[in-house]
């Protein structure tokens, strides 16, 4: 799929079929995520892939943001061994932006492979840490719920470019 086409057609998919995703494909998605740019190339992430049914059920009960029954969930964790920083510092902001870039890579790679995915920020951190036995140096930041989509959701409403983009000075929209 051509990249800009993928950007235009990607949707947040929240309802999936029961078809499992092959492990090789899941690894390819994480490989795409780990190609995201990172400050000082610190690659401050660790990914955990969940595809076992019992664990998925427990995870869905502890992550209220997951609506449907995902075939797999990828946990994106800040790995403090490589990206430890105090809140309020620019480094702290940077590692979180970096994880966001990894998230977007994963979402686009999933879309390219005909999968549907949704980034989830609503979860109970300590319950999820218990479910997947997260060690203390890993801090869960995001979940990506994945599967083969039941249908392609409608495009969400977007603010017009003229409201969110300016040339040279904010408030000057003569070029739009």
């Amino acid at each position: 799929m051509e990249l800009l086409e993928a950007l235009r057609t990607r949707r947040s998919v929240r309802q999936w079929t029961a078809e499992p995703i092959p492990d090789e494909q899941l690894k390819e998605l994480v490989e795409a995520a780990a190609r995201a740019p990172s400050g000082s190339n610190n690659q401050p992430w660790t990914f955990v892939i969940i595809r076992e049914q019992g664990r998925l059920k427990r995870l869905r009960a502890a992550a209220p943001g997951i609506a449907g029954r995902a075939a797999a969930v990828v946990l994106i964790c800040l790995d403090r061994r490589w990206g430890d920083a105090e809140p309020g510092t620019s480094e702290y902001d940077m590692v979180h932006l970096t994880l966001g870039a990894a998230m977007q890579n994963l979402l686009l790679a999933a879309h390219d492979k005909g999968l549907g995915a949704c980034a989830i920020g609503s979860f109970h951190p300590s319950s999820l840490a218990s479910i997947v036995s997260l060690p203390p140096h890993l801090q869960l930041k995001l979940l990506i719920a994945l599967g083969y989509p039941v249908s392609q959701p409608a495009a969400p409403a977007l603010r017009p470019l003229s409201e969110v983009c300016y040339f040279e000075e904010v408030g000057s929209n003569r070029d739009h």
Partner: protein
Amino acid sequence: MTTEDLTGELLLLIGFMLTSAHGLVDEPKSYGPARLVEAAGRLLDMMEERGMLDDSLKEIKGIIDHERFGPMDEEGFPARLDQLALTWTESIADRF
């Protein structure tokens, strides 16, 4: 479906409700109604899998599923919830 299956599903639903309650302490205001709609949807999933929904209830479940799985559309959400609640109330009136 066995009683054990149902017990397991209810335990998971209770987990969803408790972790939702914790998250909603500081999540966006609109997430609260959405979590209740999701809980209603999960209960209807359980009923549907056990053949407990008639056509009328299946139709309302379709509306609920659209809210659960469709793109987030906060504009008009309160009005849609208002209509959904009334539709539900009227659809179960004959049973009582």
